[in-house]
């Protein structure tokens, strides 16, 4: 379970201070998929970076399975599987070596890594490429490698930044199936997206973010109720206040 309380984060730029995140709070439960929906530049990636302890919030708290991310970031990182916005697989290593590298950095034994790799190769459908160097991989193969690498230590909580970004229709469908699989296994899954269809199709709970703030959250039914719209699409547009930057 991941609890997020009133996160704030500002950056200094040449033109002044920019508040990237200005009040984001939500709870993501185990066995559920929680979607962060918002236009580009809404603060989704910055929020996720604070969840996986790469950035420290200016104020607010993140609790992962009850552990405070500010106080014990190492334990939090052990409990998280992270697919950052930056996929960055090592192109001169094979997919298997990429996965094993992260397994070792998570303190897994060789046997554990081998067993987990087999399971992930199965569920992600990457048996044909697992022993190839990742140079020349398609976007989908790279994303799969990065996801397998992120989940090698069998984490209870999974954070994915735009997991379907740049994937074709078939791979996107497969990816959705994989995310549902993670939910079936009882994991707490958070993913961000600017594509409304995807969030609507997958999520148990939706957190709508715009301009660094949570503007609406709840189950799809609750969202419709809150905004007084019968159509989920209209509900989103109403919550965000404009259609700009949103992929319907």
């Amino acid at each position, binding site marked *: 379970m991941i609890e997020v309380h009133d996160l704030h984060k500002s950056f200094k730029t040449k033109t002044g201070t920019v508040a990237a995140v200005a009040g984001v709070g939500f709870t993501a439960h185990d066995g559920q998929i929680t979607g962060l929906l918002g236009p580009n530049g809404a603060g989704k990636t910055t929020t996720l970076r604070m969840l996986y302890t790469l950035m420290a919030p200016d104020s607010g708290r993140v609790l992962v399975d009850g552990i405070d991310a500010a106080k014990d970031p190492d334990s939090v990182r052990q409990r998280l599987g992270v697919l*950052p916005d930056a996929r960055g697989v090592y192109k001169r290593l094979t997919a298997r070596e990429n996965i094993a*590298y992260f397994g070792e*950095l998570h303190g897994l034994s060789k046997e554990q890594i081998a067993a987990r790799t087999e399971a992930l190769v199965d569920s992600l459908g990457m048996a044909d490429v697992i022993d190839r160097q990742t140079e020349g991989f398609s976007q989908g193969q790279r994303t799969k490698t990065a996801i397998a690498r992120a989940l090698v230590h069998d984490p209870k909580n999974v954070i994915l930044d735009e997991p379907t970004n740049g994937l074709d229709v078939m791979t996107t469908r497969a990816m959705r199936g994989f995310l549902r699989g993670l939910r079936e296994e009882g994991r707490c899954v958070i993913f961000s997206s600017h594509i409304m269809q995807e969030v609507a199709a997958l999520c148990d709970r939706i957190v709508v973010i715009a301009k660094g703030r949570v503007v609406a959250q709840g189950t799809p039914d609750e969202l419709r109720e809150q905004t007084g719209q019968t159509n989920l699409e209209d509900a989103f547009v109403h919550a965000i206040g404009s259609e700009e930057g949103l992929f319907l």
Partner: protein
Amino acid sequence: MSQQKSKKPGWFASLWTVMRKELLDLFRDRRTLAISLLMGPLLAPALLIGMGSVISNKLTTQLEKTLELPVVGIEHAPNLIEWLKGQNVSPQEAPADPVAAIAAQDEDVILRISEKYAEDWRAGKPALVEILYDSSREDSQIPVQRVERLLTAYGQTVGALRLLARGVSPSVAQPVIASPIDLATPESRAGRMLAFLPYLLILSGFLGSAYLVIDITAGERERQSLEPLLATPAAREAIMSGKIAACTLFGLATLVLTLFAMKLGLQYSPGLQGKVELSAATIPVLLAIMVPVVLLGSTLLTLISASVKSVKEAQSYMSILMLVPMIPTIFLMVSPVKNQWWMFAVPFLAPNQMINKVIRQETVVVLEWIVYFGVGLGLALLLWLVAAKLYHREKLAISG
């Protein structure tokens, strides 16, 4: 799904993992590997030794082959000319305009015998012989010295004969005899021949793995793989140290190759054979001296790579860094000073002095070793601490 399988990895386990991965990654990059392992370490010694043997060959030929000497007024001093012919010199008719011939570099040296030579000779007065040459030309040095030496010898011989003819012992005219005794050992002479070695070693040790260091911190960031890496529970210091360890090992490997290339080059290059030697026993000592230098280079470049925005920016520091190891060497060239203990505490000067001592087969005393390693490793540790601090900055992981 099972419960929390992973545990926080050990510090050294992470270091070891990162180091192995970086070396594997590097070894898969065959072309970069070939260039940095073969070109640098092999080309530099080959070039230097090649040049050395060309110079030494030239010296031998200039010193030993028959000297063709154009003489103006060759007819004025037939005895001198005859004597010169017996001294491996072949006197020839001079060109019409000797000054122009020297200026045009057609001749290195021309002898001009005065028209009054015979007259002065008979009168017992000093007879004038002029040596024409251009002192700004490196090539003329040896022929001019040969001619000068021969003329001096001829003058002394004739002078001695004249004194004897007058019943005076020639030693009366030689109140002092100066005899130089060269105390240089073969090893110290070798040290002079290898004067470029310290700089070559220090520079390649300091910056030999620079591109690798920049690539695995600034480059990894640009390729966007640093963010997932830093999201693992492995300690950032351990990740950084693993990268530094990989670069240090690689840097030392290039140095081993450089030293063996030097050794073979010195053994087999014509003209240098046997004169200069790099013994197998000194190679490990030289490598030990290089350890702090390589560490210093790896940590400094890691620090730079962690503080800059891009690979390009990191690389722009290279031209400055290449000059840094030269500063002490230039300082010593301008004002040479005797070895003193504090020199072993000055970065880049210290390894210079240590390498020179080892090549000249002088003993490096324990105090010098302690000061050298203490300061060298201490400085590397300091840079490591600063780099580790930079590795904790939020900005590091995020690219773009």
